[in-house]
């Protein structure tokens, strides 16, 4: 496919690796923010091809992973109600809440449906006027314009049996939470390309300056990632801390203005709890008061509850780059994608799940030695 295959060219990848090796003189730790990038890095083994001085740690950019247990429990509570059709992206179905997951609700007779787009959920609402249709609006800035549009259209067309259960989070406050922690080890960031396609990268400029960390807006294919790492190392080696844009074929400095306007119309910035990390101020989006009739939490009058994570899970440290998946004693034994203990093992984009999927054999072989 055009704009995909050429960015997987092994020869070009080899020459970037060669260039990276040439300029690397000291140990550096870089974090890629997005779970999609983590997945590509581990799948193609890019981390193993890099010079040993460079360590990649994997950031919190997996919306499925960081959706708090409380929101999953709320989804399960709503989906179990009679007369509700609960629509969700497929990757939320298996995410365990404190007791059950959405797939179990479906197995017990609940009407839980997987959709490709929030607009499919809105269509479902129009086709089923006697049912309540709830869409699980999970995601980062990339997904917010799509979810905002579904809600906006529902309000404009007065579709009263449609609502969103929202768990939207924002990247820059999470970066700041990582950088301001005393335990922080991250020296440079690969910023998430598709988040920046929506939001642009101007909001990263003050963060790069304040914490003196290079930030490179990076795409998702192997060549994008290698070029992003190359730009980041080049800055680190020369003592710079700028924001650079590797993914310029898709990202403009100011981002996508029509999409930003739709987000602002429907959502407002609020504090959000991140699974494995805790509450971060100003780190999420909630439905504006004007649109509360389409906010599932208001419609179903759900109480706020607090649920704690299994004590053994270290996903909070993994999401902040303090530990790597294999350093967890539960990894691959008591914690697997089938029976995850926490955030980073629950989604295919989570760092632990990516290591389990692509590195499990070598891990077992090492253990056998």
């Amino acid at each position, binding site marked *: *496919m055009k704009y995909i295959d050429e960015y997987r060219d*092994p020869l*070009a990848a080899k*020459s970037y690796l060669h260039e990276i090796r040439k300029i690397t003189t000291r140990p550096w730790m870089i974090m890629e923010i997005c779970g999609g990038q983590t997945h590509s890095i581990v799948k193609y083994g890019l981390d193993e091809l890099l010079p040993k001085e460079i360590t990649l740690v994997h950031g919190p950019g997996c919306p499925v992973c960081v959706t708090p247990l409380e929101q999953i429990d709320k989804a399960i509570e709503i989906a179990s109600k009679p007369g509700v059709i609960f629509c969700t992206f497929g990757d939320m179905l298996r995410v365990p809440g404190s007791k059950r997951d959405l797939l179990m609700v479906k197995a017990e007779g609940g009407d839980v449906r997987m959709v490709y787009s929030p607009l499919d959920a809105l269509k479902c609402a129009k086709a089923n006027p006697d049912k309540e249709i709830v869409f699980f609006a999970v*995601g980062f800035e990339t997904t917010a314009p799509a979810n905002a549009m579904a809600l906006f259209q529902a309000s404009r067309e007065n579709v009263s049996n449609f609502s969103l259960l929202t768990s939207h989070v924002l990247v820059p406050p999470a970066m700041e939470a990582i950088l301001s922690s005393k335990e922080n080890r991250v020296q440079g960031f690969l910023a998430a390309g598709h988040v920046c396609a929506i939001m642009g990268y101007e909001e990263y400029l003050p963060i790069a300056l304040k914490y003196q960390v290079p930030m490179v807006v990076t795409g998702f294919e192997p060549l994008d990632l290698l070029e992003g790492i190359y730009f980041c190392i080049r800055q680190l080696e020369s003592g710079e801390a700028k924001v650079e844009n590797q993914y*310029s074929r898709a990202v403009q400095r100011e981002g996508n203005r029509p999409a930003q306007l739709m987000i602002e119309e429907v959502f407002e910035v609020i504090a959000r709890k991140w699974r494995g990390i805790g509450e971060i101020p100003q780190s999420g989006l909630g439905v504006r008061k004007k649109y509360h009739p389409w906010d599932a939490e208001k419609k179903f009058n759900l109480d706020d509850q607090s649920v704690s994570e299994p004590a053994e899970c270290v996903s909070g440290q993994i999401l902040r780059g303090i530990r790597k998946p294999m350093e967890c004693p539960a990894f691959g034994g008591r914690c697997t994608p089938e029976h995850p203990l926490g955030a980073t093992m629950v989604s295919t984009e989570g760092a632990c799940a990516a290591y389990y999927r692509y590195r499990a054999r070598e891990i077992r072989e090492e253990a056998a030695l």
Partner: protein
Amino acid sequence: MCLAVPGKILFMDHDEQGYARGRIDFGGVLKEVNLAYVPEAKVGDYAIVHVGFAISLVDEEEAKKVFGYLKKIGELGELQEESQGEDPR
């Protein structure tokens, strides 16, 4: 979750609510996509699509940069010579 895929806009019109809509070809798979966020889109453009919405158009000139940069530093040429005779995988 933030997965977005580039595809070519084959056809454009408006949906019942008046929003711009396109049929997009993803390597042979056709899908209907909302184009409300890319008002400058034209038939033949490549759009980057996430959950049924085009979030950006591919800038063709910028897309070539990664290869141009490699050529400039001469690496690609050197490696091509080196790998002649190697297993072509």
